[in-house]
């Protein structure tokens, strides 16, 4: 019975440290999730992540210009453009040259502006303004809420 061998102290220590790190990470992610500042929009205090679902934009590209129309009822503060070319992509905000409307794209608002970066496709991702306990804050919607525009 005395000859029975257990884990070596080194492996046991490594395992213990790994378990502690994994548990710590899980607790950190959970805690970050519950303490994340909620951004709401409209007087209905709708979570801004849900408002992203209601954004309705139409966009096209011709002659180096991108054209966007807000046909929905959610005002868009800014538009993040993810320009995809072969094997890479770059990101910019539409109208960074000062051509973006000061109030953003409100109901029925439109924008035409030049895109200087060459590419094959643009993904236009809406950025909305919402309210938090500490004031107004911009929120970039997820990529799936964006619209694709072909540059060819």
């Amino acid at each position, binding site marked *: 019975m005395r000859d029975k061998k257990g884990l070596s102290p080194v492996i046991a220590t490594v395992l213990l440290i790994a378990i502690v790190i994994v548990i710590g990470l899980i607790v950190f992610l959970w805690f970050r999730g519950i303490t994340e500042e909620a951004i709401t929009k409209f*007087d*209905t205090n709708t979570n801004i992540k849900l408002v992203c679902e209601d954004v*309705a934009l*139409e*966009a*096209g590209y*011709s*002659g180096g*210009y991108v*054209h*966007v*129309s807000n*046909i*929905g*009822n959610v005002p868009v503060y800014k538009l993040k453009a993810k320009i995809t070319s072969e094997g890479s992509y770059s990101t910019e905000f539409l109208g960074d040259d000062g051509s973006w409307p000061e109030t953003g794209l*409100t*109901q*029925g*608002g*439109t*924008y*035409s502006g030049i895109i200087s970066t060459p590419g094959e496709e643009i993904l236009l991702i809406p950025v909305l303004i919402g309210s938090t306990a500490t004031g107004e804050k911009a929120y970039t919607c997820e990529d799936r809420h964006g619209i694709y525009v072909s540059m060819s």
Partner: protein
Amino acid sequence: MLWIVLKDYNCSTNQLNITLKNNGKFNLAGFFIHASNNTEQKIATIDLSKNLNQPPGEIYGSAVVVTLGNENFMKPGNENGYIFDNLPPNIELIEFIPARFQEENNKIRFVSCSGAKITEKINCN
């Protein structure tokens, strides 16, 4: 079912006269109007509401409404005429998105009916 139709239009010296008919079943408050003067451009981005010669019609944000007030004055079958001045040259495309006031969560909101958008090719040289 189209909610709004461009019944007729007339272009003359930077001026556009249009007659719109509410062809749907709901009362409407007005519409958003955009134009394009580039044949390659598929999205109309020139906002013509700023060019409205009022009355008839009033400007409400970026929209044109029949009359100010939170009511939908454009009833089914109604026809309304509007005049737009100082147009940019060579308008070839015009888009209308109907809009109406409706109650949501006990509040009256001005909403655009994006699914009922109509696009018309016109010739305003």
